[in-house]
């Protein structure tokens, strides 16, 4: 196996190092820029570009990572902005009482008198507002997200569109809080050690630069963590994600809140710089511009959205005005009044629309795609002699000795779809350490059985316990946490992710890294990640050199049989106690089928309990201790493979005739 040298995750470091080097150089360049480019207007424009870049980075978490189309993202921008504006301006001034004194002592408020009773003037510091603005916006993100994130993705788009509108309506109509359409005035600029930022762009430019750098860093850290993988799994296939242990509501909310936090912080920064806030700054045009930035740069691509934001900002503040000037000049030369009056800036939104349509038609992955191109395997690797994998790394997977009782106990389960009875009082038991096969013609309810065990379909009655725990009523990710992992008949891999990433998502439920750990990456998290990767590589190695050389390839590049293997690897990665395999050898040739059957046998020998749906009788005979036959939702037979094969009713169900002849 000459592939080992290059085919280990550590090989990825070179790519990471290169991108880190580029990032550092870019940061140094932009840090030094004001020293030799002393034009306040340009720096101001760049500071604005940075605001949009941070907004685009936040939207990228929601749309690009988690795949939730948010069309009202500017709402969170507005919330951060008004939060800072209200707590630093003279808009809301409750009457002074001594209970405000402690806050005055720490400088959050001051007592003022405008002729009349004493009033409270909020004087929130920019440096406190920046992180807390993020928190406030995140809180609203959770509040908005909670009712709607259970919805299907396409409804979410229109609901967020409405949210964006509602926040604007509130900003326009809640005069006492926001001063309505006239906007907040007298918002305080930041101070640092007594130095007032004032109206020059340079200090804001630096704050913006640090903010972009920070959020790029956070985005990358999240993307490469357990959190980011869970988001991308949701984006690729919600059902499979939840069956692999991802709590959908939790992670969608997290994405929503995280994106909102980015926007809230940007809102604080933006308003501190402008020192005024009006509802128009956060209208739907802003949301749409941000969407265009993300789509142009590449959904899910961190550098892509930053570049998208900078390009569009340059287009608006430099290219289009400049083009108008050129057109006016041409108009003067040719004497065309139409060209002399053209204002290209008015074309901005039209151009946005055209960008969206063209990108979707011709370059959906954006200018800087998130998915890196991987070099194809060498001819040598592709044609290498197939080597069976070893099970050395997996000795810890079995948890008990076979034959100690019933693992999975299904009793009288009924599932109805409208008038159709998909499962009619089906009962079956899988002993601990056993291998049970479910067979039956198409439409007999086999896959429904798997779906009801794993929580994807609700049962009308009956009970399903696994090691004494009732599974019915549990969400799919809770079923997996209890040690039940499955594969799907029609392969459901996370298409745009690599083999390794797919398998790592299988481990999701067994890892503990949270969002803060993912960003800070303390030693415990690093250790967990490296252990997780090692475990995943061990499982990938289970299939010998079929998958190992391909660990870094996107799963779409794999053959059908290899995709099946990845799905099994993903399920094993979750350290299940029982493995549910839905037609694992479908689409494989006889040699491959038998190879896989042997591998399943080895897994069983390690101590895994297995329930499988299979059509190939030689595979069933080789593996199963017990066979269950379903037909039209009824269990019609059960027994040893050889006995069931000769059962008359089974033959009738399969072949439509009384058997034996």
């Amino acid at each position, binding site marked *: 196996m000459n592939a080992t040298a290059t085919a280990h995750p550590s090989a990825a470091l070179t790519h990471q190092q290169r991108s880190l080097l580029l990032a550092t150089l870019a940061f140094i360049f932009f840090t030094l820029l004001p020293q030799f480019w002393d034009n306040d207007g340009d720096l101001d424009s760049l500071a604005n570009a940075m605001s949009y870049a941070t907004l685009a980075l936040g939207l990228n978490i929601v749309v690009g990572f988690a795949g939730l189309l948010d069309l009202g993202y500017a709402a969170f921008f507005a919330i951060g902005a008004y939060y800072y504006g209200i707590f630093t301006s003279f808009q809301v001034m409750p009457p002074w009482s001594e209970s405000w004194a402690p806050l005055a002592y720490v400088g959050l408020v001051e007592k003022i008198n405008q002729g009349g009773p004493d009033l409270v003037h909020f004087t929130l510091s920019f440096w406190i507002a920046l992180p807390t603005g993020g928190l406030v916006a995140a809180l609203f993100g959770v509040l908005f997200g909670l009712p709607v994130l259970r919805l299907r993705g396409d409804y979410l788009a229109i609901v967020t569109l409405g949210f964006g509108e509602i926040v604007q309506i509130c900003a326009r109509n809640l005069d006492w809080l926001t001063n309505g359409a006239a906007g907040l005035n007298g918002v305080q600029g930041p101070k640092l050690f007594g130095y007032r930022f004032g109206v020059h762009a340079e200090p804001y430019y630096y704050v913006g630069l640090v903010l972009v750098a920070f959020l790029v860093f956070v985005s990358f850290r999240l993307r490469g963590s357990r959190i980011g993988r869970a988001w991308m799994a949701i984006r690729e296939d919600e059902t499979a994600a939840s069956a692999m242990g991802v709590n959908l509501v939790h992670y969608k909310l997290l994405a929503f809140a995280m994106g909102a936090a980015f926007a809230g912080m940007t809102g604080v920064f933006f308003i501190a710089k402008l020192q005024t806030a009006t509802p128009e700054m956060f209208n739907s045009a802003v949301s749409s511009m941000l969407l265009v930035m993300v789509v142009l740069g590449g959904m899910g691509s961190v550098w892509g959205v930053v570049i998208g934001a900078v390009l569009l900002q340059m287009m608006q503040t430099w290219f289009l005005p400049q083009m108008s000037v050129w057109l006016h000049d041409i108009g003067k030369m040719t004497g065309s009044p139409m060209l002399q009056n053209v204002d290209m800036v*008015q074309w901005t939104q039209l151009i946005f629309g055209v960008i969206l349509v063209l990108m*979707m038609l011709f370059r959906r992955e954006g200018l800087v795609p998130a998915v890196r191109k991987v070099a194809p395997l060498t001819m040598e690797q592709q044609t290498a002699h197939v080597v069976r994998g070893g099970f050395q790394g997996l000795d810890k997977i079995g948890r008990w000795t076979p034959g100690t009782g019933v693992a999975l106990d299904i009793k009288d389960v009924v599932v109805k779809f409208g008038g159709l009875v998909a499962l009619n009082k089906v009962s079956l038991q899988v002993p601990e350490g056993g291998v049970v096969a479910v067979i039956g013609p198409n439409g007999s309810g086999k896959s429904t059985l798997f779906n009801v065990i794993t929580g994807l379909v609700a049962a009308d009655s009956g009970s399903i316990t696994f090691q004494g725990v009732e599974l019915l009523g549990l969400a799919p990710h809770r079923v997996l946490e209890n040690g039940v992992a499955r594969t799907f008949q029609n392969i459901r891999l996370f298409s745009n992710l690599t083999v390794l990433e797919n398998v790592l998502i299988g481990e999701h439920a067994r890892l503990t890294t949270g969002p803060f750990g993912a960003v800070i990456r303390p030693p415990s998290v690093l250790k967990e990640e490296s252990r997780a990767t090692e475990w995943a590589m061990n499982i990938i190695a289970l299939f010998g050199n079929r998958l190992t050389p391909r660990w870094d390839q996107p799963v779409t590049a794999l053959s059908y049989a290899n995709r099946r293997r990845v799905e099994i690897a993903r399920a094993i990665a979750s350290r299940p106690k029982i493995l549910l395999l839905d037609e694992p050898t479908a689409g494989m040739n006889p040699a491959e089928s038998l190879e896989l059957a042997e591998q399943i046998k080895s897994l069983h020998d390690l101590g895994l309990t297995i329930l499988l749906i299979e059509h190939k009788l030689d595979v069933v005979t080789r593996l199963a201790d017990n066979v269950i036959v379903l037909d039209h939702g009824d269990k019609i037979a059960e027994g040893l493979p050889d006995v069931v094969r000769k059962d008359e009713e089974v033959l009738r169900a399969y072949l439509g005739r009384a058997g034996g002849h």
Partner: protein
Amino acid sequence: MTAGDILLQQAINGLSLGAMYSLLALGFTLVYGIMELINFAHFNVFMVGSMIAMLVLQAFGLSGQQTILTGLPLIGVLLVGFIVSMVGCGLIGVLIERFLLRPLRNVKGPAAMITTIGVSYILFNLVLLTLGTDSKNFPNPLPPIKWEIGGAVLRLREVLIWVIALALMGGLTYFVTYTKLGKAMRATAQDPEAARMMGVEVDRVVMSAFFLGSALAGASGMIFGLYYNLAKVDIGFAAGLRAFTAAVLGGIGNVPGAMLGGVLIGLIESGSGQVIGAAWTDVVIFGILVLVLVFRPAGLLGRLAPNKS
């Protein structure tokens, strides 16, 4: 005016708005029912329909509300206005489907929806750049006939709107229930795969859905102009959001549901305008959308759309 009169007046207003929203909601429902796609372009196809209708009426020499027509000229002008705006919008819908959405038919993810958002901006800004942002006086040649019912007023325009909306909805119902293409549409909505295997030409069905839905948006745009006497570039968003809410409320993909939902949303709008104030109408409508989606996602009459999973 007594409370009863106000109620009656708001019911009359609400039914007229409802007629408009129903027609618009049908476009959402037809496309969603077949492709499971929220067509954001629909918002501004409606607006373009209203502009086309205005230009047609102006081409007849009408401007503002000064020129009153009666008899055959009135019927002729209205008929031409409706037909041109409907055919115009229908063609826009077909072009969008054929050239921008068909290449994305089998692409997973939000690509098609993002495309419709892009198309929506394009339509909006093309009208903006050519006709400007100002509110335009929509010609209204209807004679100022009105009937007083108690303290409430019923004008000719309201009756006309009801009659036209009912005729169009009746036509559509007949089409989807009895014609071959209509049956093919319903079959595709139920199960695209099975429909295809039974020989349904899915391309034709999708294109018809876009044509019909967009044409109804065109009619709806003309009704908007006749009702409010104005045309403006930004009318698409509010009307579209209401119509989409109507479609969801009735049960998305469900043709009678869209009609029912439209009427209910119209009544709710005129009611809430009376009770809470027009500035908050969007919030009320939107609250209904969220409540329906959360508590009764199938809507009142049931959802009829393929479940892509």
